[in-house]
Structure formats: C-alpha cells, structure tokens
C-alpha cells in the first residue's frame, strides 16, 4: 500500500470506524483516539497491508483497541449502566433510541458483530476475521443480538401501552 492508497483508506473508512466505535462505546472522545491509533498502525504497516484487505484490517485493529479500552474501563461502565437502566426506560420517545439503548446493553461480541453487519455491511466471514470468531459464531451472535433487541423493544412497548 502506498501513500495514496493509505489516504484513500482514511477518506473511505475513518467515518465508519468512528461510528462503529461510538455506537459500541458511546464515547466520542475514546472513539477519536481509537481511530487515530488505528490509522497510525496502518501507516506503520502499510507496506505489508494490501488495499483489498485494508478495510477488514482497520476494523480489526479498531475492534481490538476498543476491547482493550472497554476492559480497562469495565467496572466504571458497569456501575454507570446499572444506575441508569431503570430510570432511563421512559426517557426514549422513538424507536431508534430504544434500539440504541438495547444495543448498548448487548454483550461486546454481539454488539460488535451486529454493528459491523448493519453499519458497514460486512458479511459473516469478514466479521469473523475482525472479531476472531467463526462464521457460525458470528451468525449466532447476531441472531442473539437481534432477538435481545426485539424483546427489549417489545418489553418497552408493553410497558408504555
């Protein structure tokens, strides 16, 4: 990969990576840092990375970086989400917010697989390469994620109406 191709990657994938991280972490500041680190790593290894595999490579670096950050802040996040779960139930007034709330409560693998699938249109194989899962594991995780979101939305609808 040359400099021109690297710049092309920045233009094409930086927004997607940023959204993927923001959706998973709900922290734009951390997401910016992760995007920056991701492209720095790509620049260092640009001679060994081909353009056609650059997208999966970038998302994999971003995903691993995100997991590291989440593990560091795990206790902090758990304490925050536990306190807000009950009180925020009635704060959402549209479906997208419900869904986002449900997604934020998903396990990390399910959340990552689902966001990669829906945000970036990755297939199961590509998601497996990024997250280190097999294709069947990816499919199961996405299924469980959708089922959880469906039930979450259904539960809220029952509570509201």
């Amino acid at each position, binding site marked *: 990969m040359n400099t021109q191709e690297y710049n092309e990657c920045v233009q094409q994938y930086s927004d997607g990576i940023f959204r993927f991280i923001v959706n998973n972490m709900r922290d734009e500041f951390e997401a910016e840092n992760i995007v920056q680190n991701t492209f720095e790593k790509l620049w260092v290894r640009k001679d060994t990375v081909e353009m056609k595999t650059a997208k999966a490579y970038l998302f994999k670096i971003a995903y691993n970086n995100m997991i590291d950050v989440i593990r560091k802040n795990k206790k902090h996040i758990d304490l925050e989400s536990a306190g807000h779960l009950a009180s925020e139930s009635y704060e959402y007034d549209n479906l997208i917010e419900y869904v986002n709330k449900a997604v934020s409560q998903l396990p990390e693998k399910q959340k990552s697989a689902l966001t990669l699938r829906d945000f970036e249109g990755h297939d199961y194989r590509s998601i497996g390469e990024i997250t280190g899962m097999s294709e069947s594991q990816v499919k199961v995780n996405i299924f469980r994620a959708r089922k959880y979101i*469906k039930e979450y939305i259904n539960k809220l609808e029952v509570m509201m109406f």
Partner: protein
Amino acid sequence: MKLNKDNYELVMFDLLEGNLSERDELLVMEQIEGDEFLFREWKLFKSTILIADKEVNYNGKESLLKKESVTVVPMFAKWIAVAASICILVAVIVFWPQDKPTEITDNGKIIEVPLEEVTPEIQEPVVDELLVQSEVENPSVIPNVNKETRRPKVTEKQSSIKSVSAILAIKEAIQNMDEKQLSNHYEEIKANKLEVIANQEKESISERVPSIKDNKIEPILLDEPEVKIAFESPMELNSKQKVKLFVTNNSPRRIKEKANAFIAKVSNPKIRLKPNFKSKRPSLEIELETAGYQAIASIQPFKNRNN
C-alpha cells in the same frame, strides 16, 4: 417452509439477513402476512436493524492524511556519479589489456605474432642466461644499482621483474639501432671515457661525493664500468655486448624508459616464485612468463640462514 412457534424466530432472522432463497422468502412472507402474531414479531425483528447515523463523522481526517514523500537527490551526487563514470571509462580505455603476443626472431627483433600462431610452448630462456652471464662477466652491467638492491628481496617481486624486463628492453633497443649509429655512438663513448679518466686524475677521491643541486642528491654510478680503450668494432658485437654497451653508457632514466617501453609490449605477464629454503644455500627463483617470453632470475637473499 412452515413457520411454527419453535422455528419462526430463526426463519425470520434468515429472512432479515437475506439467507433465504427467493422461493422461501415468498412462502415465509405469505405466512407472516396471514398471521397477526407472526406479523407483529416480524415488525419487531425489522426494527432490530441498526441504522448508522451519517451525521456522526470523524473530524480529524486531515490530521491522518499523509503527503507523498519525495526523495531529494542532491545535485552534487549526480555530478559525482558522472565523474565516476568518466573515470571508469578512461581507466578501461587506458588499462585494457593488449593481447598482442610477440616473438623474438632469429636476428633478435621482436615481432607481433598472429593469435592463431601462438602456442603455449613458445618459451625462450633469454633473460636468465643474459642476466646471469652478464653479471659474471661484468658486475657493472646493471648501472647505478647497489649490489644489495640489485638482489631484490623476496617480497619485492615487482622490482625484480622490472630489472629483468629492463635488460630485455635494452637488448631490443640496441638491436634496433643500425650499425652506423652504433659505430658513432661508440666513438662518442670512447671520447667521453678518455675525458673522464683525465678528469679523474685531476680530482681527488674526496671530491667524488654526490653533488647536491637544488637540494636534490644527484645519483652517481656506484660501479662505474671499467673503461676499455680498445673497443671492439660494433659490427662484431653480439646481443649481450650490445646490452652491456647500452646499460653502461646510458642514464638510469633512459634505461628505465626503455624498460617501461618493453614492459608495455609484454602482455599478460605471469609471475611465479619458486622458493627453495631447505637447501644449504637458500634461494628464490622468480619466473616471468609472457606470450613468447620466459625469464628466470635466481636470487640468494640469505647468506646463512642458520645464523
């Protein structure tokens, strides 16, 4: 494909993910539209699709972009490359080996031999005989050379070769002179020698120290040739005597020039050293072999190796 309570979630998931064939999709959709529960469940499933917020963008792209790196080649490097190329070209032209084999004819002249006529067997032991015999007959054959320096050290291979080559060059030069020139040359030498003898009688021995001109010590003849008043006729001189005559009566610079000229004609010299240090009188033989020539010089650098 029939939907029931056990499989409807999986089928709807596959329908949502696009994992079903068109035919299965149609069958499943018919069943979903015909059942209120299934229709509501399908609606909830569709709502699980995440929609990316396109307004959320990364603002630091400019800081990530890199500029094309340009390799700066200084101008002097180009000139150095050009100069080096010229030097190499000149060196190749100057030092390109001239594979023109030569041969000594019966009358002593050196001629070039066509390549197809050259055979490795052409070896005439000219120099060794010439060198050794001329030294025996007259130790002053080699001019302005100290006895010790005339015997080259084992490591001074190149100087030994030059000594041998010098004699060959002298021989060639004398052979190339015509008889009339040689006769005139002899007359001049005779007159010069007589004058030298007369001067020597006048001067004391102490006055014969090396003269200093412009802070440079002028070389002197260490072993001046014995002056013989009765010269042989040039007509009757053989090649050895001609060599002797040339060496005796020419300056070292002239001899060196002749030697260099001869060396230039000799192509692809092969030098072989044959040390013999085990005998009572250790010696070293130096062989110079070229196309058509072979010269052997034997030296004994160690008087007594046991001491």
